[in-house]
């Protein structure tokens, strides 16, 4: 036990004392923060307004498209003799040309959009919305409903609240999905970064030929576990430091850029859905979202995060260590050998992406129980609330999976690190696993 502690200490200290550790620990939060800040600054600044020239041959929308938003405004134009679309846009100083031919309903060719360099998705959807609204109003009017009635209908909408049956609390699926996505993504990144770190460490020891010296003093299993635990602690340290740094930046930011604080007061990484949702709602709703985030069972989420962080990391780190022990000098070999490990991680990520939308589908449940994907998928489900039996089962499976994988990996590892200059076939590897 004492020896494993020495190994952990060495693995930890040599990494933490490196300049690159300090640089990444400080730079990454700054980078993420810089990115978030610049995104917000950009979205706050109104984009350059685009003018849409309307050439209405049908006469259907005559003087109807008079709305203007922050980004778009309409302008009715006529075509001069022999003028091309391009010339028309230039002459009228517009950005987009909307050409409406006489139409009778379903015909897609009767409304055309032109723009230098192509029409953006947001412009198309904005124009489409405006046209459809006017079109529907016209249809309703022709059915005998007058404008006043239409307006009063339009101003009404139904509100919904959703509840979780388990604890009878109001749920907010947008928030839950954002938190789930962020958590799952973090675990995914952790497994990749630190798992690859373990692999590199093992490869280094093998190619430096120090492994054989060390295993004459300690058991290969101790060396492997020491490395895995040491690097895991480095990861944990880095996360804690990131957390602290983010918190500091969070507090400092409103002082640096006045007026920004509000739109970021949640402090949570948000999916685009939530961000756009937040832009279009008033202060009152912002408070609701804020409360919804605060209402989340953070104790539960964070302790699960810690469990799945450690479980997922240990499970995969052992496999990465085994692969590292098989590699000789050739990095390409490493790439080939990691495929069987990276596949389930990516698979887990894909399941996670669907789980944030549908946390109780059978695929999500399977993914959150299967130990190779559960660290990623379960984190996406937890903010929605997961039945206790599933959570316990998933945790038990993860621990069992970790024990099994470490046991198998150790067998590969102890043979692999002493095998120099030889490419190993899968058949041999399987033989090592059987060999006691």
């Amino acid at each position, binding site marked *: 036990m004492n020896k494993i502690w*020495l190994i952990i200490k060495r693995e930890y200290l*040599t990494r933490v004392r490196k300049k690159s550790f300090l640089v990444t620990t400080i730079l990454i939060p700054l980078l993420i923060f810089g990115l978030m800040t610049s995104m917000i600054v950009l979205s706050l600044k109104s984009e350059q307004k685009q003018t849409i020239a309307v050439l209405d041959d049908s006469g259907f929308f005559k003087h109807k498209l008079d709305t203007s938003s922050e980004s778009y405004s309409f302008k009715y134009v006529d075509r001069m003799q022999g003028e091309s679309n391009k010339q028309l846009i230039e002459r009228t100083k517009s950005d987009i040309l909307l050409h409406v031919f006489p139409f009778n309903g379903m015909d897609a060719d009767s409304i055309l959009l032109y723009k230098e360099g192509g029409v953006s998705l947001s412009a198309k959807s904005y124009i489409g919305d405006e046209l459809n609204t006017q079109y529907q109003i016209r249809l309703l009017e022709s059915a005998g409903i007058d404008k006043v009635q239409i307006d009063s209908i339009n101003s009404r909408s139904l509100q919904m609240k959703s509840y979780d049956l388990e604890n009878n609390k109001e749920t907010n699926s947008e928030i839950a999905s954002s938190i789930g996505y962020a958590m799952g993504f973090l675990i995914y990144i952790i497994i990749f970064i630190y798992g690859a770190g373990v692999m590199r460490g093992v490869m280094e020891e093998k190619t*430096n030929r*120090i492994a054989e*010296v*060390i*295993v*004459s003093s300690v058991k290969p299993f101790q060396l492997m576990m020491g490395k895995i635990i040491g690097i895991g602690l480095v990861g944990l340290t880095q996360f804690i430091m990131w957390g602290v740094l983010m918190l500091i930046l969070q507090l400092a930011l409103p002082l640096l850029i006045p007026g920004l604080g509000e739109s970021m007061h949640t402090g949570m990484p948000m999916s685009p859905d939530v961000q756009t949702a937040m832009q279009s709602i008033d202060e009152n709703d912002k408070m609701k979202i804020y409360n919804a985030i605060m209402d989340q069972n953070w104790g539960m989420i964070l302790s699960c995060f810690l469990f799945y962080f450690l479980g997922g990391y240990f499970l995969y780190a052992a496999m990465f260590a085994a692969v590292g022990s098989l590699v000789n000098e050739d990095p390409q070999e490493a790439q080939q050998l990691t495929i069987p490990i990276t596949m389930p991680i990516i698979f887990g990520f894909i399941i996670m992406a669907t789980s944030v939308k549908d946390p109780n589908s059978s695929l999500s449940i399977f993914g959150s129980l299967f130990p190779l994907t559960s660290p990623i998928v379960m984190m996406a489900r937890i903010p929605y609330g997961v039945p206790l039996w599933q959570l316990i089962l998933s945790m038990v499976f993860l621990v069992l999976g970790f024990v099994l994988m470490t046991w198998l990996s150790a067998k590969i590892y102890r043979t692999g690190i*002493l095998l120099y200059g030889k490419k190993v076939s899968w058949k*041999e590897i399987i033989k090592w696993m059987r060999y006691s």
Partner: protein
Amino acid sequence: MLELQHLKKYYATQKAVDDISLTIREGSIFGLLGPNGAGKSSLLRMVTGITMPDEGKIMMGGEAFDPVKHSRYIGYMPEERGLYKKMKIGEQTLYLAQLKGLSKIESMQKIKYWFDKLDMNSWWNKKVEDLSKGMSQKLQFVTTVIHDPKLLILDEPFSGLDPVNSEVIKNEIFELAQKGTTILFSTHRMEQVEEICEDIALVHQGKVILNGSVVEIKQQFKENKFRLETDQALNHFDELIIDQKNTTYTFQYKEPENAKQVLGYCLSHDIQILNYQELLPSLNDIFIRKVEGSAARTFSINS
């Protein structure tokens, strides 16, 4: 000190160690000889506890070998040398000493002793990657003996060493042996063995084909060849002389009487004897003879 009993280690394609039994006396320098791929490294790895034998037993100091318990008493320098390239030399030596079970204080004392002895004190804050090859091999040796092992196992300790460092390490090996360290080392270079070892075992294709003290083995394989250097020509014993250079003759005696006859002849004819010695075969000759013999045997069995 160390007893190997019917050790076997089989790999998929070959029998690396095929029923080897050896006894290594305490405080002796034991040489394990054999060509590359004979199974020397596989054998040494089992004795260090890095791998387990498929069959057979290792006894250390009278009790069954236990890697966990006995690793403290073993120093092992593998054929493929290696250290952490980016780690500082002082820290690295300390780390390796502590892994052997030494306390930090003990480790520091030992490091000081060895660094003083081999003039390495200025290295403490250097990294291994900054050392020359010869220097790093010296360091490797120090890390192997830092914990005063009772059994020192060296796999090809002289391969890749320059003459100066080779001499340094050789002297250290002698000194350690005098202090009672048992030394087991492998090599494929016979001349070193004659110089250093007391006992040897010749390994070929996973089997011991010869084992004993260097002196005994040479006696066993002697061919009754003698060299005589005189001040004038002999003009006699043509049937016994197998080689002649000026007045230096190589005899191959056919019976013990021959010596008396040759020397008697010189004395009675006033021929001055400048030099007279028995020519013992070198281990290299013996080895080649044995290996060729066994190869021939294997061949005859197969055919």
